[in-house]
């Protein structure tokens, strides 16, 4: 049985289609990364799966339960950490977790025990008895994650869990999410950070303009672009860059070529042997090269290939295997 399953899922807001025929199948115990830029439809999909929003059409099931027909039963089996740490600043961390546990039907002692376990997991220590308004962004996120786990859910939804966090806080949240893998909890994680999806997810779904445009393990997605990627930034008009792209596509060493503005992305099977022929071909066409980069494919390359645009540069993390 899949932990999460959707079929032809659609959500319209007036005439705007936010989610467009999305099919998902997330296995039990899997960490699934749902990757896309702001406004791609990630959060809308998650809000539907979390029982907060009805779909316009299509079906969805979480933990084997129909989300539309049996939302109350679904809520018992899911944990949610929504975008922008949804916490009450006036409560202490312990009070918030206790209230959360009690609302899920845990007894007083069971809740207290569970809160102690989560205190250790989040490493919040003495801060648990301080008001949440005094917490840093990272502490709030960790508490938010704990609030989603207090009742021991089968499926955990994390909506952009590290957005706005500093690198240190981000890696602490990552550690906690990785730790969940051992507990068997299925994690559905939306993110706009390529590095986050790459680090955490067993499988990734890429969503753009409401449509699921690709799905696979990070390695599979990157392999789909070939062994290496050569990215050439050219110093000429877009028309000349297009001419250069067409010429490069004919080279034996190039598997595929795409032009995006003044950037030409080449999928190649042997990067080292492709650099010289590429440079020579562009020189022959009198196309001036501003920068040439050889590296293994990143998820950003996959994203560029599928959607024609990059995710923002500061969201991609450091590309792996960069050589200039």
């Amino acid at each position, binding site marked *: 049985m899949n932990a999460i399953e959707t079929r032809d899922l659609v959500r319209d807001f007036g005439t705007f289609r936010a989610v467009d025929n999305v099919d998902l199948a997330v296995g039990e115990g899997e960490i699934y990364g749902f990757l896309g830029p702001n406004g791609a439809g990630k959060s809308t999909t998650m809000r539907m799966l979390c029982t907060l929003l009805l779909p316009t059409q299509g079906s969805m099931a979480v933990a084997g339960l129909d989300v539309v027909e049996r939302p109350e039963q679904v809520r018992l089996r899911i944990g949610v950490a929504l975008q922008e740490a949804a916490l009450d600043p006036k409560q202490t961390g312990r009070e918030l977790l206790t209230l959360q546990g009690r609302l899920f*039907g845990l007894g007083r002692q069971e809740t207290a025990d569970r809160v102690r376990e989560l205190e250790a997991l989040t490493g919040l220590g003495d801060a648990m008895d301080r008001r949440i308004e005094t917490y840093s962004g990272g502490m709030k996120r960790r508490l938010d994650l704990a609030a989603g786990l207090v009742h021991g859910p089968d499926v955990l939804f994390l909506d952009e869990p590290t957005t706005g966090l500093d690198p240190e806080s981000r890696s602490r949240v990552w550690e906690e999410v990785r730790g969940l893998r051992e507990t068997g909890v299925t994690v559905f994680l939306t993110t706009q950070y390529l590095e986050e999806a790459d680090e955490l997810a067993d499988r990734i779904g890429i969503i753009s303009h409401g449509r699921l445009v690709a799905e696979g393990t990070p390695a599979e997605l990157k392999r789909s672009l070939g062994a290496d990627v050569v990215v050439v930034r050219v110093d000429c008009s877009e028309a000349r860059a297009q001419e250069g792209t067409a010429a490069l596509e004919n080279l034996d060493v190039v598997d595929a070529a795409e032009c995006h503005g003044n950037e030409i992305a080449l999928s190649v099977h042997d990067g080292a042997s492709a650099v010289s022929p590429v440079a020579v071909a562009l020189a022959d066409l009198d196309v001036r090269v501003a920068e040439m980069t050889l590296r293994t494919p990143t998820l950003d390359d996959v994203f560029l290939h599928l959607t024609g645009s990059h995710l923002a540069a500061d969201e991609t993390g450091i590309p792996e295997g960069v050589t200039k």
Partner: protein
Amino acid sequence: MTEAAVANVSSRGRPRFWRDTSFVAQRALRDAWRDPEGVIPALVIGSFFFLVNVGQFGAIAEGVNIKAFQLPVAVLFAITGLSRAQSLVLDIRDGYFDRLLVTPIHRGALLIGLMTADMVIAVVLGCLILVIALVAGSGFAAGIVGLLVFIAYAALWAIAYNGFPYAIALRTGNPAAVNSSFLLFFPFLFLTTVYVPKEALTGWMKTVVTWNPVTYLLEGMRSLVVVGWDADALLWGLLAILGVAILSQSLAFAALRGRVSRG
């Protein structure tokens, strides 16, 4: 999740509703205790109006126990509109309301829990103002039981009126709009027999006062302080509360349904 917990939250009906209501109310009261700046001004306003009105009208109101006459006014000034609606708006804006919605909490408890907290706060404030007035020498004609009925009317009025700010909070999620609900306070409380008895009013003012339900609430509460037990006045007061409650709570629960609907 433990099977016991699943069974516990899966059971439908009153036990879960009351339990969830108590959780929401406890949280609201804790917030109010920690941030008394939301409550203290109401106490100051009630006490201020009592002292100022007694001071100003005491000299010209011959043969009238002005302190007793003004006691219900002071209580209503203190408690009317004192709600957790602003906190509710913050919950909506911060996303905490959504966090509550993804728990199995009884939806009605989200509102009734807050109103329960309002009622408790209204009782505490009402008692404090009663003490101030009694110490100042107002007297209380209906005795101890009358005091309890007086406070009960105040608490019921708090719930009846607060449907309006909650309706606005849930409908708009906008703190400024919730603040504007305070405007209702003026016609409700000033276009009544707040300063003089109805017999002394004339013209349009008498008409408006006659149609204002708060007039009857005020008269009912005042009867306990000044006269003793006046069944007619108490009944009309209760009907006035009921009328306002039906209107305000219909609006509030319609707004809650809209807010928690998944459409």
